[in-house]
């Protein structure tokens, strides 16, 4: 074990000899509903990898209190300890936490490939449901037996989904569908867990960046909760589907609302190859670029015409259909770009278009609330932003398969984390995930795409007045 990992593990809050004190503001913990499902018995931090992730988190959080006095630091430690204990009981996070830990263990010499794989695995685990439980869930949600609702219903799941599983079925009208079913009660359990977890962290208000970091956590929590609401996903799917025309060659599955609720989502089943299968068939560069172009077009279309940011980049969420069209799946985790958010995107369009550093710095300062005297923070944030936007700046074909280029971004991101430069708009972690996710998929495809031209085509949908900076 490398020395720095051993150090990290040692930095983990020791199992206190005194009983950890439960803060007063935790009434909900005591009256939380009966533990749901088998999640609790899977300790989330039970493995070495998970411990590493927790140790990183702990050290990072504790770093905020370097300047605080001793008593406050001790108090904060007690709270982190409680938070970690709580995190440990959240078994559905197991996969995600382990994966982060595995990656951090290689930190900072992390390879792009490992980064890509980490992003892929960041999901909630749910235990498999046996057929009888599944049947009851469908009965409770849709009011009838699966066999009465559907012409055929495969009792075996064909895929695991975040917090549930997906079954193939056929509607009475003949359409092949995919039915996503959520483990009963888990959405509410997660919601309660996160509310309690954040209460543990609330008393830690000593750092300058804390309020802002808490906002980011809150934002993340809202998004996690969103992800468990299949009705919201159905709305996103419908909205997204309407954005694409036949000539785009991009298809979003149709939702069957009469067979969908907040816990059951019935969609058109698209048959095709997931990106990993597609790559395994050793496609030509032209084929790869074609797929990459469609993925990017979908991303920009959703962003500029749909005003929503696709976050969940996962090779399993993109299907190459036999006729060459691209299927985009899983709209559970989307960022709606509304109001102030949309206004900021409007402002970002200027530096994205001009490629000028002064334009970029103005936006970075506003986005991250950076003061004039914080030169180091500004420099690092600007470098990272430049990396994020590089593909678009350069014009012409951008080579997403360039490992050195990708590593540069990872290293900059790692540096930001090391320095705890967490201050930014609340949705920044989610946007970073979207950015890195997109880059990961492009890297996987070793794609070369003219991002500039594509983005220019799509930005037009906004109807923004860009006359004072856009290239004619």
């Amino acid at each position, binding site marked *: 074990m490398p020395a720095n990992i051993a150090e990290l593990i040692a930095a983990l809050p020791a199992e206190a000899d005194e009983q950890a004190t439960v803060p007063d503001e935790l009434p909900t913990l005591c009256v939380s509903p009966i533990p749901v499902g*088998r999640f609790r018995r899977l300790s989330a931090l039970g493995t070495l990898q998970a411990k590493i992730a927790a140790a990183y988190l702990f050290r990072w959080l504790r770093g905020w209190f370097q300047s605080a006095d001793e008593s406050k630091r001790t108090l904060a430690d007690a709270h982190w300890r409680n938070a970690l204990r709580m995190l440990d009981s959240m078994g559905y996070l197991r996969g995600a936490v382990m994966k982060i830990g595995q990656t951090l263990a290689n930190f900072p010499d992390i390879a792009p490939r490992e980064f890509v794989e980490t992003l892929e695995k960041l999901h909630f685990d749910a235990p498999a449901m*046996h057929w009888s439980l599944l049947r009851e*869930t469908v009965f*409770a949600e849709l009011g009838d037996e699966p066999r009465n609702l559907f012409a055929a219903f495969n009792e075996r799941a064909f895929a695991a989904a975040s917090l549930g599983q997906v079954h193939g079925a056929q509607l009475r009208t003949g359409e092949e569908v995919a039915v996503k079913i959520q483990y*009963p009660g888990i959405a509410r359990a997660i919601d309660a867990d996160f509310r309690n977890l954040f209460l543990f962290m609330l008393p830690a208000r000593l750092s300058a960046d804390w309020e802002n970091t808490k906002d980011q956590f809150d934002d993340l929590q809202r998004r996690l909760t969103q992800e468990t609401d299949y009705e919201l996903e159905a709305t996103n799917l419908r909205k997204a589907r309407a954005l694409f025309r036949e000539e785009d060659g991009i298809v979003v599955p149709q939702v069957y609302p009469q067979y969908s609720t907040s816990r059951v989502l019935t969609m058109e089943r698209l048959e095709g190859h997931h990106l990993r299968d597609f790559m395994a068939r050793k496609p030509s560069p032209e084929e790869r670029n074609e797929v990459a172009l469609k993925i990017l077009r979908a991303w920009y279309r959703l962003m500029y015409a749909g005003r929503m940011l696709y976050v969940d980049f996962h090779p399993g969420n993109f299907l190459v259909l036999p006729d060459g069209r691209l299927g985009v799946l899983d709209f559970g985790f989307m960022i709606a770009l509304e109001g102030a958010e949309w206004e900021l995107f409007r402002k970002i369009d200027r530096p994205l278009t001009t490629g000028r550093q002064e334009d970029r710095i103005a936006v970075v300062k506003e986005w991250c609330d950076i003061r004039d005297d914080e030169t180091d923070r500004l420099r690092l944030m600007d470098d990272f932003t430049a990396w994020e936007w590089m593909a678009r700046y350069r014009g012409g074909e951008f080579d997403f398969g360039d490992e050195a280029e990708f590593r540069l971004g990872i290293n900059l991101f790692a540096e930001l984390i090391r320095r705890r430069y967490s201050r930014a708009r609340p949705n920044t972690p989610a946007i970073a995930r979207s950015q890195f996710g997109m880059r990961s998929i492009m890297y996987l495809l070793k794609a070369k795409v003219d991002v500039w031209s594509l983005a220019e085509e799509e930005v037009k949908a906004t109807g923004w007045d860009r006359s004072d900076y856009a290239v004619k």
Partner: protein
Amino acid sequence: MRITADEKRATRRRIVEAAVDLFRSQGFETTTTRDIARAAGIAVGTLFNYFETKEALVASLAAEALSRAHAAWKRERERTSLNQRPGLDEDLFSLVAAELRQLRPLRKFLSPFIETILSPLVAARKSAADELRVAHLERVTELVGRHGVADVTPVALQMYWALYTGALAFWAVDRSPRQEDTLALLDESLQMFSAWLQGQTDGSKTERS
């Protein structure tokens, strides 16, 4: 005056319907046998010819529901092909789930019934509820036997009964949407029970050999 069997059945049905209406509208606790008799249009004395207590009335309703449930459960099992035989936990889950489906219309006034009659705290006595208990446990014994646990000890059965009535009690007051927490509770607890029971049997086999 002689009363025909048909008339008896009709009166019984009137009583049951009146009782269910009253339980629903004013609750089990506040409904008296006098209220039920009045609503059914019969004398209180006549009511007692049919049901000794209102608990007996609910027990009879529950018995009917459970008998429908068991018939449905049996039909469902026959549909399942042999190569898809579920594990013991799933088998037990499907049995209890089938019961809950049929008990659902009674859910609102079932908790006092579970408390006063089905609770493991109530000493077994000859009653309609006692028959329910025996019928359910016989089914469980048979199911468990099919999964290779030949003799279920009285202790195991008592543990199962405590778990079963506990889950019923949880369900009766479950406020989660469509009682989804009960499904999760049943899934988890029956899995634990099955694993314990089957481990128990394996263990005793090893010890003896």
